[in-house]
């Protein structure tokens, strides 16, 4: 996973220097698995695509890391990197949070979009980064998703979106709620083309993103153990005053309840995507 070799970024060079791994791994040689407690050699963990070798816990991946293990080497070209956030409500502390998100992720928004190929199939691809304000969706995020669908229509390419998000970005107020409608409408427009849309739900995919374009794909793939749902567990639990069912809102729960097509280990992701893309391609 060496980003610089394959990642040809067009804009926003400033953020590049700050780019690093986003998922709160300690900087040291060793990493503790948050699920089983195993102490893992960080280099081995990287090699294993950040999946715990003992319990298969899937660590979070930043957008850059995710692209590195998903698309054909050197094929990713970023698009719409120049879109920048405006604090139009003068929402308190929004700028500082944006700056922190930028430093965390090396990105200027929680959504990276571009074109790439997977197993030789050209795709439009969007990848979210939880390190940027919890992958929350504001205007830039929604615009990138909408443009991605439109780019898919223009170029006749399938669209793949790798999701992770806490929901809509409240700092942008009502306009961030409207991103749900906007991206869903874009998905609908794309849906009429007969091209394939694949959504990948990684830990966590919640609320406004889950309740819009993320659930509107032809094929929905979840990573093992990913938390996926509408409301946070605390909210749901408050509403019920009872304990949630076993495995509530985990990927496997969503599979059982018919909401995702498969729960796919990270190591199988790229090959499976290539196979699925082949099904949509030959028409």
């Amino acid at each position, binding site marked *: 996973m060496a980003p610089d070799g394959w990642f040809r970024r067009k804009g926003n060079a400033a953020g590049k220097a700050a780019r690093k791994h986003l998922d709160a791994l300690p900087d040291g040689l060793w990493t503790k698995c948050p699920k089983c407690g195993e102490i893992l050699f960080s280099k081995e963990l990287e090699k294993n695509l950040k999946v715990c070798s003992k319990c298969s816990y899937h660590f979070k991946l930043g957008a850059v890391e995710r692209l590195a293990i998903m698309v054909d080497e050197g094929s990713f070209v970023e698009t719409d990197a120049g879109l920048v956030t405006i604090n139009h409500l003068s929402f308190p502390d929004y700028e500082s949070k944006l700056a922190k998100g930028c430093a965390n992720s090396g990105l200027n928004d929680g959504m990276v979009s571009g074109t790439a190929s997977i197993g030789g199939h050209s795709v439009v691809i969007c990848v979210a980064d939880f390190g940027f304000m919890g992958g929350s969706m504001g205007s830039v995020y929604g615009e990138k998703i909408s443009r991605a669908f439109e780019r898919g229509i223009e170029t006749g390419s399938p669209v793949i979106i790798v999701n992770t998000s806490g929901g809509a970005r409240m700092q942008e107020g009502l*306009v961030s709620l*409207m991103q749900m*409608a906007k991206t*869903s409408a874009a998905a*609908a427009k794309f849906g009429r083309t007969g091209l394939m849309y694949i959504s990948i739900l990684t830990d966590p995919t919640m609320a406004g993103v889950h309740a819009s374009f993320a*659930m509107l794909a032809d094929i929905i793939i979840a990573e093992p153990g990913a938390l996926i749902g*509408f409301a946070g567990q605390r909210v749901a639990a408050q509403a019920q005053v009872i304990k949630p069912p076993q495995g509530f809102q985990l990927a496997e729960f969503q599979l059982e*309840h018919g909401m995702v097509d498969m729960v796919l280990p990270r190591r199988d992701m790229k090959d499976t995507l290539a196979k699925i893309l082949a099904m949509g391609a030959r028409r």
Partner: protein
Amino acid sequence: MALNVLDLEKPIAELDKNIAALKTVSEEEGVDRSVEIAELESQRDNLISQIFANLSAWDKTLIARHPSRPYTLDYIRAIFDDFIELHGDRLFADDKAIVGGFASLSGRPVMIVGHQKGRDLKERQYRNFGSAKPEGYRKALRLMKMAEKLGIPIISFIDTPAADCSFGSEERGISEAIARNMYEMSMLTVPVVVVVIGEGGSGGAIGLAVGNRILMLEHSVYSVIPPESCAAIIWRDPTKGPQAAECLKITAQHALENGLIDEIIPEPLGGAHRNYDAAAASLKAAVIRNLEELSELSAEDYAKDRYAKFRNMGIFGTEPQE
């Protein structure tokens, strides 16, 4: 009645009481006090005007949630003829938090969908406080697709604190249901007029709100998150809802300023709950006017118009690319 008086309404309620007392006395004693009454009423109306000229975002929130505020079925009764309620999603259940059906609007057939809150404790539970489950959104979608098939316009009333987030709703895909509705609504080939009549509560609202025209009653609110929840996240203090409401700018006036809605429907003095008939008349006129304007579009255009409308929602800048 006293239970249903907001703090900001207390001085108004005081005058209301005096006026009522005067009227009673006047009737009982057979003395004409009409001048005095008119004087007090004028005084009261001035007071209302004053108070309502300076409502905060939080005041608006409270008025939008006012327990006496007219709900969807109140407007349906007042505005439409021959309402024929239709039930069920054909998949799982009939959700009482969303109502819908055919009705006649000034002689023209329309399809209505809308959140329904409950007035008393029992009805509130029956309506799940206006928080719809997946089956509610799926019922609404079924009715909207039927309207599309029959070629009749859709009117959607928004009034919900939020979508239901019980375990059952998660299990049956509340996210999927809301997402699917936005997807399908964006493509409908009939006109869709959305009216936020009370609370436009985040995902629960937008799941019924992808229309060609988005109208808001003067004292309704529309927000990405309940102010209390926002306060709990930012300041770890849910009692700071008033501050959060201000930050979020959840009023109809702000939504219009930001170009996210098309029109504000004026409410009678003191809010819709002070005069159902006047509120309904105001709403009816606005809906009819918007439907008439939309009637100039063709079936194909309705979807295009809706797409363009939502596609343009977003406030961001662009940096020059290297």
